[in-house]
């Protein structure tokens, strides 16, 4: 299969890296070549976080260039808008509509933009915004947002759902499995 490119963006602490880990593990289980890229260190202290996953027959580069992403999964509106130029013309964007302020917003030096949804929709044809944080809280823990987002992303992933579930079982500690599967179902069921 042709290489499939995914970007996952969010804010440090939202659990972006776990989502990409599960997708990469599923690609491996499906017998594909896979590369995943992330950044540690300075960039994590409440800053913008980007993780990239590429899978297919043979993957060379671990990073996605501008205009190459088939799917952008945004955990936060502003961090979704930041990477729109990486999305293909026929690519898709799903994102959590719950905003997280920047430090500039907290100290009242700047305002969180009100028109993020319009910006995203003006750039990409297939956009699915939804309140993933609310679904995660309803599932029982705000920290399951990563599984809610994965559930919502299932419809776009060229990976078998049962294999993704195997990858979740391989990745998540047993005691947290129930709540995370609930979150996955919530994300999957929510969108039309």
């Amino acid at each position, binding site marked *: 299969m042709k290489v499939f490119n995914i970007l996952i963006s969010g804010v440090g602490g939202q659990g972006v890296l776990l989502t990409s880990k599960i997708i*990469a593990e599923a690609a491996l289980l499906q017998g594909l070549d896979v590369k995943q890229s992330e950044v540690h260190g300075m960039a994590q202290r409440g800053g913008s976080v980007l993780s990239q996953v590429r899978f297919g027959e043979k993957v060379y580069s*671990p990073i996605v260039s501008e205009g190459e992403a088939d799917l952008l999964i945004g955990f936060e509106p502003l961090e979704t808008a930041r990477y729109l130029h990486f999305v293909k013309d026929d690519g898709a964007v799903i994102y959590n509509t719950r905003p997280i302020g920047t430090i500039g917003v907290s100290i009242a030096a700047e305002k969180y933009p009100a028109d993020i949804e319009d910006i995203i929709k003006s750039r990409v044809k297939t956009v699915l915004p939804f309140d993933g944080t609310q679904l995660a809280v309803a599932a029982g823990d705000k920290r399951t947002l990563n599984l809610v987002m994965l559930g919502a992303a299932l419809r776009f992933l060229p990976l078998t759902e049962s294999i993704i579930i195997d990858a979740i079982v391989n990745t998540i500690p047993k005691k947290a499995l129930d709540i995370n599967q609930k979150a996955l179902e919530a994300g999957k069921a929510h969108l039309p």
Partner: protein
Amino acid sequence: MKKAILSGNEAIARGFIEAGGKIAAAYPGTPSTEVLETLSQVEGIHAEWSVNEKVAFEVAIGGALSGVRSLACMKHVGVNVAADPLMTAAYTGINAGLVLMAADDPGMFSSQNEQDTRHFARLGKIPCLEPADSAESKQFIKAAFELSESFDTPVILRTTTRISHCKSVVTLDPAESPAGRGLVRDFAKYVMLPSNAKKRHVFVEDRLVRLKAWAETSTLNQVIDGDKEIGFIASGISYQYVREAFPDASVLKLGVSFPLPEKLIWKFSASVKRLAVVEELDPFLEEQIKAMGIAVHLGKNQLPSCGEFNQRLVREKISGIQLPTKEPVAGLLVRPPTFCPGCSHRGLFTVLAKLKLYVSGDIGCYTLGALPPFSAMHTCICMGASVSAAHGMAKGLALQGATQKPVAVIGDSTFLHSGITGLMNMVYNGGDAIVIIMNNDTTGMTGGQEHAGTGRSAKGTAAPRLDIAKLCQVIGAKRVREIDSYRIKDLEKIMKEELAAEGPSVLISNQPCVLRYRVSKKAFAVERKTCTGCKACLKAGCIGLSFTPEGKTGYVEIDPLLCNGCGVCAQLCTTGSMKMM
């Protein structure tokens, strides 16, 4: 055969285990940290956080001399610190294999410069291997130990951020168990008195000639036969970008980036119409290839020396064809990293900003104090420089008749790494500056590693705990005081006293890192009725705070999920509206 998805760093650790490695020493540094973190979990391997990279490399030298395969890991700037033993270990050679793993950071995701470690291989006349993914990271470290033992040389294994932190598929193999070699007494080889070193230098030059011959046939270098219009030479991550951008082209992939296989390069360049050398950072390969008398048609004349590459950049710059661009959304708010809610650095920088002091900074989370709203750090050079530079500043200012007293801010791990020598120097040379040691009981910025002051080893076992205050007293600092960086009024008073006193003064804050130790205090809340919207609390620069305009003023709220109850904002509140819930 079991397959796993590993980062380059995890794969290097795995390769070390498979190579039967026994001693691993490192100082944490992004993007190198996870190699030692992974090895610290492995039984039968001595894995340690050394106090700095020079010490780590010397520990690895000792391990190799004792007869077991040994590894030192560090980020690129750490190699500067370790350069002294490295250059002479190049002369003595080894007993069992010795490898230095160095991780460069093109794009500077978490570094103060973008230097290219490959130059150290050329300087020391020792081999440099560059893996291009995780599978090669595992393969190459094993090859590095064999090479080290075959040629009696330390070997550099050089990665970059995208090799160390990218994950890809690795096949796991069983571990070897090479027999220990024991210590060897060899005066002429291991005692670098000038009379011996002169002979060893001759050995080094001869070894380099033999290494060049080896590189010609090493399977670590590979030719991918393809289209001859443009032939590419690349190593490491750049190889992947080339394959992605020009899948049909001929490529000479250099797994050995020093010394170069000259005959192989001659043959390859003669087989293609035009030659392209694709490498991030410095034209390390390109300049050597040009010096061989070979024309490099496409190289740094097209490609940047700054920042990291990607497949699109390589495709555009080499083909000269501009691809259709998609502009990023303009004017988006940036989201810079910032102190965690509850961080012990927040109170200190609130006070330093208020007093408008000149702050000589250092490497760690506290470097974020240089950013708004604090803007209270004015230099940041390298590990330990805060203390020594503050001393130089104080002397320079005094000679200019200024009464300004500079303040050094340094973390616990950084102080133990190379701040101690600066303080000793300041005391000895009659210095007069304030040194603030922010002891949060961990190496914070790299994710929380143990050090000589935490009381625990890399493996998590109990270890002797160094007493920083006592150490400063023994060095001879006259004024050593403990501070509480959360209590900003007291802190301001102490700062004023120390500014007036004859130094050097050492102030030590002993508040644990809230992230590492998962410190969780009760959240504060704002009394809406009394909040006047004066914004005084916002100077705390905390993402837990938010201001909502209302009429001519507005009000502040605290996010109970983010607040960690440190109370710095409450101390700044002018109306007493912030209370613990």
